[in-house]
């Protein structure tokens, strides 16, 4: 639920350095606005931020972007994109899903992410979080997935393992409860933990 009537989604990309969030939040506050939700990631020295903010008075998205840019640029390569939020929610699928984690390790080569993501898309499996990292010629890919319950997990596992064999990758598809059980204090459930 947003605090004010006029809601915007704001995206910032910049070289990573201290003070970016402070600058962005200052700009929002100067409009009497509120930050309703935000998430940031730093990858390869680059900072990216997605934020849902709401303000009491309507403002042109470009003007809001300009306000944030002015507050934050300070000589850095700083880009801002703003658009009015339409309050999007992920479409609810017809059937419930279970949470699984795919992990793949192997010698890096172009097309790894494409091959796996294409397969998952073809099965209507949603990727809710994705991590990839190349180190010393090795690539590791970890994805958190929502898998529709009608799929036979062992069939998916066999397909993915075969795809891994073709690429020279070790691929595993495991229910997320095993990761919850080994790392977190919350309870696991047969359907995956409540989020």
């Amino acid at each position, binding site marked *: 639920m947003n605090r004010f009537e006029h809601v915007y989604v704001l995206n910032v990309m910049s070289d990573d350095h201290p003070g970016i969030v402070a600058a962005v939040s200052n700009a929002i506050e100067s409009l009497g606005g509120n930050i309703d939700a935000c998430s940031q990631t730093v990858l390869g020295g680059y900072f990216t931020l997605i934020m849902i903010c709401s303000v009491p008075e309507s403002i042109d998205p470009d003007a809001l972007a300009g306000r944030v840019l002015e507050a934050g640029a300070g000589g850095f390569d700083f880009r801002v994109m703003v658009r009015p939020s339409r309050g999007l929610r992920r479409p609810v699928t017809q059937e419930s899903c279970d949470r699984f*984690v795919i*992990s793949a390790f192997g010698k890096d080569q172009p097309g790894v992410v494409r091959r796996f993501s294409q397969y998952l898309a073809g099965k209507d499996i949603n990727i*809710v*979080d994705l*991590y990839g990292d190349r180190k010393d010629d090795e690539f*590791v890919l*970890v994805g*958190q997935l929502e898998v529709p319950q009608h799929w036979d*997990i*062992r069939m998916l*596992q066999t397909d993915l393992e075969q795809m891994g064999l073709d690429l020279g990758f*070790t691929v*595993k*598809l*495991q*229910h*997320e*409860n*095993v*990761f*919850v*059980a*080994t*790392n*977190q204090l919350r309870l*696991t459930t*047969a359907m995956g933990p409540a*989020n």
Partner: protein
Amino acid sequence: MLRTDEILSTIHMLHAEHLDVRTVTLALNVEDCAAPNVEHLCRKLRQKLISRASRLVEICDRVAAKYGIPIINKRLAITPASTLLAGHGRGAALQVAKTLDDAAAECRVDFVGGFTALVHKGIAAGDDVVIQSLPEVLANTHRVCASINVASRKAGINMDAIQTVGHVILKIAAATAAQQGFGCAKLVVFANIPEDNPFMAGAYVGAGEPEATINIGVSGPGVVSSALRRRLALDNKLTLGDLAEEIKITSFRVTRVGELIGREVAKELGVAFGIVDLSLAPTPTVGDSVGEILKMLGIAQIGAPGSTAALAMLNDAVKKGGLFASSSVGGLSGAFIPVSEDAALSEAVAKGHLVLEKLEAMTSVCSVGLDMIAIPGDTPAETISAIIADEMAIGVVNDKTTAVRLIPVPGAKAGDMVNFGGLFGSTPVMEVRNSGASTAFVRFGGRIPAPMQSLKN
């Protein structure tokens, strides 16, 4: 949402450090299979095992695949065979054992435990049938495991039973001489036997247990030693307290995996979830070893002074981590030190660092007892009984489970190597010092009374 570092750390534990679930054991009450006619008894027994356990392996395989965690053994445990065999003879014992063996094979389970007699205060008719039939039963079955409880905190130590068991162990060894006395590896002699133990050879279902439950034995020596190695590489100023903390955290993670698997298998099978046994159970694979952990803790030669203290710390940390992870802890729950099944322990015996007496001291602070120890085939029965009596005394006085699984290897002398194969591993035959010097003590017989500590009411 899970964090990537959490996912990567678990994947490392599963795939690089070989975390597995050592056993899923279906515990079944079979008392309702009793019948005056042995053929009738065996038909009921077979029917019950097949109807209850035929889906166990398939369910375990499915759950193991879902979580990406191997389940190494699928097993059955039953209420003591002595109850079924009361009023029958030794011929019936072999028929019952073969029925168990065949049903276990049909269900594709690895072992069936519960060929058991509880004789801590005295030997009843059914118990005697079980004990006397053991040489024949263990020589003629593959999957049947036996246990005898000869002592308890409340009853004391039944020296008459121990005297008998000493002779029976030698007979089992003789009956399985072609397999280097391997039949003895399928018999455990206990003090304070746990009623919900999922590990073999001592698994059985005690009085008060439900009709059917799933009990889990986790593994993890390899995971613990990897965690210690990683921590030691990061920091060279660690104290033993820091290392205990690392073991505790690892034990928490391992136990949570066990409980996750156990609850799901139980649900799918439509039976109650019983317990997670927190034991660290080694395998002969290099690295998956409790001895290796002792080395990580700075004991360069296992058996050297400090070994008992290090093992006590390990055992305690495993319990503390596991207790927080699960409210359903049971079984043996402690570190195992089965000599032939643990490559580092076996090596320590071969090098002369680890002797029987030091092992006995170590068992006073960890789980089980003198386990998977090969001894010379000419060890007198009374000496075997006396070794058992010593171990039972540790259990009774300290109010803990202790056990003995000795294998007198026919024709073998101290120092000879024996190989039992697979998870049972290999070991040098250990020297038994002062052999024959306890005969008069054992021949007194009777019962060593329960200690003062038993009178708590």
